[in-house]
């Protein structure tokens, strides 16, 4: 079976992981338009080439990022998200709209 290198757990069978989608920036749900939100949730680059994407090691619930070539099926690099996310993101709860 194909192996994937988990930054936390080392090399594991790829069946232990799930794919979590392209790495993309979330627009602010408070201020963005419906079109921008639709773009964020539905649309995709779907690149044929090197992509950066989310993966999770299921057994340890550990989320990380991977660079992968979507034509050759090679995982080029896996790394902890703190390389990119240097600040804590706080979500502010707002009153639900009636």
């Amino acid at each position, binding site marked *: *079976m*194909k192996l994937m290198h988990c930054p936390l757990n080392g090399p594991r069978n*790829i*069946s232990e992981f*799930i*794919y979590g989608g392209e790495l993309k920036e979330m627009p602010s749900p408070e201020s963005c338009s*419906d*079109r921008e939100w*639709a*773009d964020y*949730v*539905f*649309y*995709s*680059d*779907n*690149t*044929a080439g090197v992509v950066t994407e989310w993966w999770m090691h299921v057994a340890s619930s550990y989320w990380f990022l991977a660079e992968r070539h*979507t*034509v*050759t*099926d090679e995982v080029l690099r896996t790394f902890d998200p703190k390389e990119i996310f240097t600040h804590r993101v706080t979500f502010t709860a707002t009153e639900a709209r009636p």
Partner: protein
Amino acid sequence: MPFGLLKYGLSSRYPAEVDIPPPKALKSSYDVVIIGGGGHGLAIAYYLAKYHGITDVAVLEKAYLGGGNTARNTAVIRSNYLTSEGVRFYSESVRLFQQLSNEFDFNIMYSERGQLTLAHTDGAVRAFRQRAEVNKHFGGRTEMIDRQQIRELVPTLNLDPGHLPVLAGLWHRDGATARHDAVAWGYAKEAAKRGVEIHQLTSVEDVVIENGRLTGVKTNRGAIRCGCAIQAVAGHSSTMARKAGFRLPVVSYPLQAMVTQPVKPFLDPLVSSSALHCYVQQTSRGEVVFGGGSDPYPLYNTRSTLDLKESLITSGIEMFPFLAKAKLMRQWAGITDMTPDYSPIMGASPVQNYYLDAGWGTWGFKATPICGKTMAELIATGKTPELIAPFCLERFDHFRQINEMGATAASH
């Protein structure tokens, strides 16, 4: 006798029939350029010529005709979907398929076997009841059947696989299969007969857009101007759309399938299981097709993997245990353009004069005739036919998805 053969071989009437004319140079301009020479692209060309008299059409195919997902699907034709939009659309496709051999005067080997989907949970039984009623409402022949009826229909089926006993079945009499290559070639021959140019080994490298309007395409054989263009490129939909400057709600996954060596006829209907994520059918040659495992992550690669084979066969032999002795003969994969709601995207694109025939995921073959017919009508009249209006790209911007996730038989 050998002289008779020699005489025939040397006669000017030999070869008797040319399917499509030999390739010639590209013209500098066409009314319509169709990108992708699969079943869909060829069907659009055929219906444009047949119903709308538009024959200044070029179908551009980067490899050979019908060599992509048209040749890689498992040739299931059915209309037992869940939503009214979906059922109306696919029912019309089944009706067109039924007449296709006569229309082409060419046998597409349409074979109405019926399709049986197995329910292993109460939830699936409820969903199947709804699908049966929706399907009946739109003129389809679908009904719920019990274990005894399933046993009579498919005596070789194991009704108690592991921890998932079969509770009931959705029996879709309209379910059918056909020879997929014949469908593509039937459309190609009839389109070519009416003057459509079919260019193989011609890839579209870029599209030319002036002031938001498409005016031409650039190919590996030179630039062409055109009145409008349609992309019908299945797994490569996002790549093509990017050339035109927009993104699609599509992710490309390989779908893997396989067949065994031929065995005696034992299975008439197409059988699929909602919980075992597998569908099984026996072709007219006797081979048993195991269908539909999507890879667990996106990929533009048609390799086969042992992991997926193992999981599909595990389910397949739960359903038909004696198949454990059969040997696999072929395996393959196609790149499917999956949409978030498991419904296709047809109609206008953000670029004027550029049309989309995309998002066909694992359900494209069965829609070939109706998609071709309605897209041709859209291109010829400029008006979106009512049947495909709900499948427009903008539905995602307005959160009006058409959810067919549960009614697509492949495992996802």
